[in-house]
């Protein structure tokens, strides 16, 4: 299947949406520092890096076709565009959350104390998934707690309220919540490494018609990441600029980066994409998503098909709408950009 009966014509201007998250800050920095323009010029195209303040809205806009690509977490790529029938290619596996998401409790440092409590979190998001995995790790189920949907922007304020005893959040909010008196992180994504992946996804049809876009994006990404990883003044300057863009202090931003496992080397990213562990992870994620009714009314977890490097598929092979495409990362690894 595929969304369109007519193949999109090659075009020269593309919009890539991003929202504030530690692992995605290289994108706006690359835009400001001229790296985007450099690579776009090289391939004779124009790329606009568009900020969408609200994460959900950025993914919605991508699904609706207003953006050609978007920064998104693996679970949301599956449940929003892919489950909505939009054929999507994940061309860059940027990082995985290695403590960027966490379960917070007030007054106890034992996860088991969460039983029966109300937990504030962004429902049906990776936080929800993390909570499910956390409960699983101590032999509980989601039904053992009560979830209260809370907007991501408000979760810090909510956690400051005496009413709220438990919450699940991601960075930068999580780092502020950890600073609160009597608050304990009882479970984090570091306990399930590699399961919460942060991707750059692009519309498959657009990518097919314009492979240059994929090359330019990969070029931008790995140049910027290499720059920010440098330990010298240059690297520090780049990180400080990203911190400012994220509204954080440089120290706070560095601490966020420390819980983000950046695949700064394209080889590592290719390895992660090719690893069978990705299939296992995505199986867990899709089973959770399906159990929460996120597959658009489908009757089986197999309804949405996924393709992995090397021709492996998961779910309905006739209806593949999420493709992990390592070809551009490979080009970067091989220095062919």
């Amino acid at each position, binding site marked *: 299947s595929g969304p369109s009966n007519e193949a999109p014509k090659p075009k020269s201007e593309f919009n890539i949406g991003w929202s504030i998250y530690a692992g995605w800050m290289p994108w706006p920095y690359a835009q400001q520092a001229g790296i985007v323009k450099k690579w776009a010029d090289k391939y004779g195209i124009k790329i606009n890096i568009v900020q969408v303040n609200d994460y959900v809205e950025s993914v919605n806009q991508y699904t*609706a076709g207003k953006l050609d690509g978007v920064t998104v977490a693996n679970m949301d790529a599956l449940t929003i565009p892919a489950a*909505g029938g939009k054929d999507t290619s994940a061309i860059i596996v940027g990082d995985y959350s290695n403590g960027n998401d966490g379960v917070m409790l007030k007054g106890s440092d034992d996860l088991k104390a969460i039983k029966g409590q109300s937990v504030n979190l962004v429902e049906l998001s990776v936080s929800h998934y993390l909570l499910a995995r956390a409960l699983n790790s101590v032999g509980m189920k989601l039904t053992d707690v009560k979830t209260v949907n809370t*907007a991501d922007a408000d979760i810090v304020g909510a956690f400051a309220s005496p009413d709220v005893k438990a919450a699940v959040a991601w960075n930068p909010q999580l780092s502020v919540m950890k600073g609160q008196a009597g608050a304990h992180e009882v479970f984090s994504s570091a306990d399930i490494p590699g399961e919460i992946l942060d991707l750059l996804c692009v519309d498959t049809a657009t990518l097919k018609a314009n492979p240059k876009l994929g090359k330019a994006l990969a070029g931008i990404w790995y140049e910027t990441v290499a720059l920010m990883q440098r330990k010298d003044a240059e690297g520090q300057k780049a990180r400080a600029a990203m911190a400012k863009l994220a509204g954080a202090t440089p120290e706070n931003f560095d601490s966020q980066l420390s819980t983000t496992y950046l695949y700064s080397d394209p080889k590592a990213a290719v390895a992660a994409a090719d690893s069978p562990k990705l299939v296992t992870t995505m199986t867990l994620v899709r089973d959770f998503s399906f159990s929460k009714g996120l597959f658009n*009314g489908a009757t089986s977890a197999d309804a949405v098909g996924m393709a992995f490097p090397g021709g492996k598929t998961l779910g309905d092979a006739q209806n593949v709408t999420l493709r992990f495409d390592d070809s551009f990362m490979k080009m970067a690894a091989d220095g062919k950009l």
Partner: protein
Amino acid sequence: MRWVNRHVRRGEGVLLGALPILLAVLAYLVAAAQRHAQNPADKILPLPGKMADSMAALLFDADPLSGQLVFWADTLASLERLGLGIGIATLMALVVGLALGALPPVRATFGPLVTGIAVIPPIALLPILFIALGLGETAKVALIVIGIAPVMIRDITAHVSSLPREQIIKAQTLGASSWQVIIRVALPQAMPRLFHAVRLALGPAWVFLISAEAIASDVGLGYRIFLVRRYLSMDVILPYVAWIALLAIVMDLALTFVNRRMFPWAHGESH
């Protein structure tokens, strides 16, 4: 006949009024059909059949966890919050509006404060609201009240303070004290305007309700809309919005009706 003089009979009025709404519905159907012709899985403008399916599940199938019928539980929760919020705001508008409108020293003292509160966007101060009121029902009702009451108060104040001076003088020559002027002259004449103000506040009240439910909630029409917004499930959002519109229009009509019934003197053709 000149258009200013063309009066429309009741039956005709209903017909005429339905026309643009039907046209809007038709326009939607055409647009949706077009999008679906291009992409049969389009989520943005779902077809009626899809909406009916999704809604049927929410309407008739009990939630396995809570055992509730989701749609009705949402409606009940939202209406309760809305009713409380509008009720409190209306009461405040009446009491504060009367005091401010009828008593110049009170107006001088508290008018600027009310203006200040009216122009401060409450959603910017949510963290403070959370600390003060927690995250429960109180905070949601409070957000509605803070959102709509100042506008209503200012409207009633303006109305009461522009009552003809003669009436106030006349009441005093008839022995009325300030208190009596307020309850016998200002209050009854403020009532039709209060009804009008509530009608105008209905739209904003729903906005604040939905915002409140979007912030922290586990049931409610706004909660559901924001939850499924993550998945661009317009097949749920659109029927929910239509339902909200229907509820609001019914409230609007009921208010108009009660207003005309209770205050005939304010609506009789004068000459």
